[in-house]
């Protein structure tokens, strides 16, 4: 161990503050697969019955977990795809094209990004009701994508800004059309941003709770977050082991994605400087 002595202070402080979190996570895992004796912190024997929701319906009124997971996946991935697609084109326009009102548009993006979503929920509810999209997956996908867009557009614009202007001019001079220049020469430079944005908006969709809760309360459009909510609120049978197991199930994809895509995710916080 040749770690710098200075770092040790930091590590120590960080450990102290994160210990409660770590303990909570440890018990989250343990309790989901063990049945502790009442009033004891020591886990008893291994008990997989908490995970029974995977192979049977936990009660008749609920949709199967697999359908809920499928809903969640469709919701998160379609949102991520939409956000990335629109941000990729809008970010380019904002970064490169000299369009009227550009500064106001940019300012608007930041304000929209900072705007608390929850205050809009009634208005959105009415709009969805009006469009007949209330309690549909498509409805919450559109809303979620719209709310994520300002962030995505802003990030992508930042990545485009780092691509030298001359590269595009060189491409045009080499005889390529503007579209081809964008597709073949510029887009590859912003790939890290694209990947990061895709992952981040997927994760954001995966963990979204308020929008599906309010705008898609029906059981056919349930996603994992609202499913969990329904389970815990069911006071007829408060089963914390079950709840913890579902929580584990819900967070495994997030953990996996973070582990696999760490590097891509860090890109976004570097502001795409290495574009």
């Amino acid at each position, binding site marked *: 161990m040749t770690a710098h002595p200075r770092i040790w202070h930091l590590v120590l402080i960080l450990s102290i503050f994160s210990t409660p979190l770590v303990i909570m996570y440890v018990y989250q895992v343990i309790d989901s697969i063990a049945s502790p004796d009442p009033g004891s912190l020591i886990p008893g024997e291994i008990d997989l019955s908490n995970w029974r929701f995977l192979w049977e319906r936990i009660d008749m009124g609920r949709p199967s977990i697999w359908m809920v997971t499928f809903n969640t996946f469709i919701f998160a991935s379609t949102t991520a795809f939409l956000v990335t697609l629109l941000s990729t084109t809008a970010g380019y326009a904002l970064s490169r094209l000299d369009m009227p009102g550009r500064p106001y548009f940019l300012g608007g993006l930041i304000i929209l990004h900072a705007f608390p979503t929850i205050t809009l929920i009634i208005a959105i509810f009415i709009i969805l009701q009006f469009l007949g999209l209330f309690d549909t997956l498509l409805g919450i996908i559109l809303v979620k994508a719209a709310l994520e867009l300002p962030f995505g557009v802003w990030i992508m614009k930042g990545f485009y800004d780092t691509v030298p202007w001359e590269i595009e*001019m*060189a491409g*045009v*001079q080499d005889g390529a059309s503007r579209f081809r220049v964008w597709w073949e020469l510029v887009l*590859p430079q912003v790939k890290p941003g694209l990947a990061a944005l895709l992952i981040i908006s997927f994760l954001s969709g995966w963990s979204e709770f308020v929008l599906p809760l309010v705008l898609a309360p029906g059981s056919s459009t349930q996603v994992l977050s609202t499913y969990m909510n329904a389970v815990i609120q069911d006071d007829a049978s408060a089963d914390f082991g079950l709840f913890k197991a579902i929580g584990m199930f819900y967070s495994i994809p997030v953990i996996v994605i973070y582990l696999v895509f760490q590097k891509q995710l860090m890109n976004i916080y570097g502001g795409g400087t290495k574009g």
Partner: protein
Amino acid sequence: MELRLENFTKRFGDVTVIENMDLTVNSGEMMALLGPSGCGKSTTLFAICGIHKMNGGALYFGDRDVTTVSAQGRSVGVVFQNYALYPHMTAEQNIGFPLKVQRMPKAEIRREVERLADLVQIGNLLDRRPAELSGGQQQRVALARAMIRKPDVLLLDEPLANLDAKLRLEMRSEIRRIQRETGITAILVTHDQVEAMSMCDRIALMRDGKIVQLDTPEQMYRNPQSQFVAGFLGNPPISFLPARADASLTLANGQTIERPPGLEAMGDVVLGIRPEHFGPQHGTGLKGKVVFVEPQGREELVDVRLDGGGDIRSILPAGDPIRPGETVDWGIAPGTILAFGPNGDRL
């Protein structure tokens, strides 16, 4: 191919950057666009390659009027100041890109890329990405990419600005060699007079959006048409001394020198004396005191403050024991004095 700009005018909003400029570059010639920063060199270049639209005038490649042709439709190769290589492509893909756009068969592209790589001498680096190449090698790749389409004209925007001094010297002669070998018509934009003089057949010296003189390097150096041109060319620069011309030339400090033959002007003039034309080897005539000596290896620069005021620079072979503070009485080579009127025009 000959390139002709007629009455070229370029405005950005209300600001007219270039007004009614005429420029003809002969076929196979290398022309320098030289001038101080902001004089409109890049603007002219971008108008020629089609990135900027012209607000007035016409542009011809040979007999073909390309004024309204898009950048893609013009046959122009451009080397940008920062090379603008495509970072995600190898050198080979970079060089071959213009042909790929033209949907040329792969085998043919490959053959052409190899031909160009030989020309710019990077045959062994073709599978590297730009980040894995040195500045000089990137420069060569950029040059090869600009030339692979066999363009009508080659445009170089400050191609040497990003290189270190030694590499600059090397690439200077390389670019010239490649231009000569291919016989391509080329325009070099630079604010470095040494580059312009050493690489180009002719120089167009620009100031505030106008060409003030267009000449061969030797002519422009020896026979500048204005004080601006004389001051811009030459390193170390020329010295200017205000004087009154009557029977002889009386400097502002009271010293007199003989009228150079052929000078007819009377009244207030400004004399231009190049450093190599002032020194002890040219006899005597101007008295002063050495204020500064700057050794440069092979030669040294000597700044002399004339008695009664006025500074004049001299360049001498190194080794002469000259010290600051020394009083000197040096002469000017006969027939080399340049005289300019009060408005800066050559007399």
